[in-house]
């Protein structure tokens, strides 16, 4: 007909003519859309990163406590576990029929606020997360002896650790542990690829190291395994790194705060350092900015040389253990047996089930969040309705003029409703732009503070549906002033009423 273009042109010009009020309305809609999309994206991604924390594990077994408490402590490293599973019980249950694998877990120590997890080699072969993915090494390999440690990717990134570094594990949790196991430095031999789970924030050490550490700290300040043969290479490398730091210190004062330097200050008492003064590689110091890279290039060989040895030792107890079965059919049977275990009170949970229970507890919170953001959107749309209705009486003249040049009542209706649609649409577009802006700025923060990594992809079908619902709601709102305008134009006829 050609009228459509005319009407759209008129609608746009009429809307632009009332810039101030339209812009305000548009802003409220945009902000509410941004809020709704952000909350939904965070909700969705938090849920998926939450339920992807552990998979492929049939049972988690620990000392008797609450289901959720056991899950939180063993998988999320949240809360303290005072009770433990005796090593004897572990060995006993491990031998049960149908058990495919077990992973012992010993928690309770920390390194600069990061959890330290004692385990054995099965951890790297059987632990799975997300969609049954295995842990992968970004650098290096699994530990072979009591002096080796494998880092989660966040730990390595945050503390700027690299293969070959030596670190000290503290006894107890948190940054402010009183007792440092500083007689027991450990060499980093592996860094795991990022998983988006608490594994990233964990340091993994062999069970034997946990045991040795605690024995030494509780009995006498002996240096456990200090001069062992396997460790020699690593210490050699360590001396090498230390040399860098020392040279940096003396020649380049501006690098005093270099991370490695700090690290090495903790080791200044170590007598090995002096033995390695003949390592002078001065040409490297010109590129001290790439110092970290040098370490990576220089060190892997030495640290990877150690031979696999006993990782378990003779622990008395562990915090918990994970179990996998040959067939899921065993799960319920074994679970019942463990829950009625005679030797000590134990608890076996199915992680998938408990994860869901835990999420259901948070369900009401997410529902309230969703409700709030929906209400905000509704309020912004009602704001638009108010503005449109308020301007309507001023626009009766405009409608009479349009009628006089041949516009039909239905054209008036279309004109008025297209304005609401236009404002809602622009509000949605602006809201999406704000949403992506917020996503890009908030993502690093959420990642570092809460371990939730947001997907910055194109809008999901769900989000598009939300936008569709908002558009429909906006259109419905627009029908009201449009209907009023329609009846005005019928009643007013040709006369202009003010």
């Amino acid at each position, binding site marked *: 007909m050609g009228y459509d273009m005319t009407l759209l042109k008129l609608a746009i*010009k*009429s809307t*632009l003519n009332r810039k101030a009020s339209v812009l305000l309305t548009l802003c409220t809609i945009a902000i509410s859309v941004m809020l709704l999309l952000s909350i939904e994206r965070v909700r969705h991604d938090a849920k998926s990163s939450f339920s992807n924390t552990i998979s492929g594990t049939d049972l988690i077994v620990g000392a008797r406590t609450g289901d959720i408490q056991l899950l939180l402590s063993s998988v999320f490293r949240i809360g303290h576990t005072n009770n433990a599973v005796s090593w004897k019980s572990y060995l006993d249950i491990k031998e049960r029929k149908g058990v495919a694998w077990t992973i012992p877990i010993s928690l309770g120590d920390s390194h600069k606020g990061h959890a330290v997890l004692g385990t054995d080699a099965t951890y790297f072969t059987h632990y799975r997360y997300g969609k049954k993915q295995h842990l992968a090494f970004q650098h290096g390999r699994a530990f072979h002896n009591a002096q080796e440690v494998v880092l989660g990717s966040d730990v390595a990134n945050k503390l700027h650790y690299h293969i070959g570094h030596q670190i000290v594990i503290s006894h107890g949790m948190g940054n402010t542990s009183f007792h440092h196991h500083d007689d027991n430095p450990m060499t980093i031999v592996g860094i795991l690829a990022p998983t988006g789970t608490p594994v990233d924030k964990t340091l993994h050490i062999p069970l034997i190291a946990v045991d040795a550490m605690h024995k030494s700290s509780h009995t006498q300040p002996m240096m456990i395994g200090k001069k062992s043969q396997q460790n020699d290479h690593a210490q050699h490398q360590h001396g090498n790194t230390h040399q860098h730091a020392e040279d940096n210190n003396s020649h380049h004062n501006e690098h005093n705060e270099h991370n490695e330097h700090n690290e090495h200050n903790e080791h200044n008492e170590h007598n090995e350092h002096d033995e390695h003064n003949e390592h002078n590689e001065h040409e490297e110091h010109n590129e001290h900015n790439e110092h970290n890279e040098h370490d990576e290039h220089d060190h892997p060989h030495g640290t990877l040389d150690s031979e696999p040895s006993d990782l378990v030792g003779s622990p008395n107890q562990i915090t918990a253990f994970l179990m996998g079965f040959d067939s899921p059919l065993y799960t319920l049977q074994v679970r019942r047996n463990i829950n009625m275990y005679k030797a000590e009170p134990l608890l076996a949970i199915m992680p998938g089930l408990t994860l869901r229970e835990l999420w259901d507890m948070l369900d009401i919170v997410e529902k309230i969040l969703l409700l709030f953001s929906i209400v905000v959107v509704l309020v912004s749309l009602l704001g638009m309705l108010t503005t449109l209705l308020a301007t309507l009486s001023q626009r009766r003249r*405009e409608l009479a*003029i349009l009628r006089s040049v*041949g516009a*039909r009542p239905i*054209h008036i209706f279309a004109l008025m409703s297209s304005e609401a649609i236009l404002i809602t649409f622009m509000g949605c577009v602006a809201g999406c732009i704000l949403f992506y802006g917020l996503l890009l700025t908030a993502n690093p923060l959420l990642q570092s503070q809460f371990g939730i990594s947001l997907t910055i992809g194109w809008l999901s079908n769900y989000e598009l549906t939300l936008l569709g619902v908002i558009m429909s709601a906006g259109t419905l709102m627009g029908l009201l002033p449009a209907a009023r305008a329609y009846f005005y134009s019928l009643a007013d006829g*040709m006369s202009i009423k003010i």
Partner: protein
Amino acid sequence: MITITDLIHTWPTQSHPTLNIKALHIDKGERVFLHGPSGCGKSTLLGLLAGINALQSGQIKILNTDLSTIKNTHKDRFRADHIGTIFQSFNLLPYLNPLENVTLGCEFSKQRRKRLTDKKTDMTTEAIRLLKALGLNDSQLTQHVSKLSIGQQQRVAAARAFIGEPELIIADEPTSSLDEDSRHAFIETLFNQAGDYQASVLFVSHDKSLASLFDRQISLLDINGV
């Protein structure tokens, strides 16, 4: 041009008819001055003629078309095609410039656009020609309508009524907001344009001092039998 017979119109909220016209005839090219005090049914009559108010009883024929026989949507099209309207004041859409306000007169009428095509011109060219003929200068064509004087605004409204040569021009007290001198000048330009293609003009006003300028004067009180 216009033939009215036995027209009776009663507003739903009133018990007595507002209009009761036995017969009224206006010829093609005739300039008629319709006067009467306010509230006597002038606006109602114009609404009925324009096909905006629904016909209740009697007959209105415009250009040999019986308005009672055509549907509402066709009435709107009929009005767009054949009737140009000038209101008392504030005739213009504030978000369109004078030129766009004039071409708006053609937007809803294929027939008006066709007449322009037949004259080998287009909407914009014709709008500029009309505006200039009515006394606006180049710079005023695209400036904001609020910058125009009321007299100039009424000229733009007249140009919108005339574009595409509708056969009937209805002017509803278009001069009431103008001063004495402007009134005469405005009516003169109105007649010039109408004379160009023999349009009929139905001019409604309560100001009898203008009546002498017209071919015929009708008092609504005289023909309205209520």
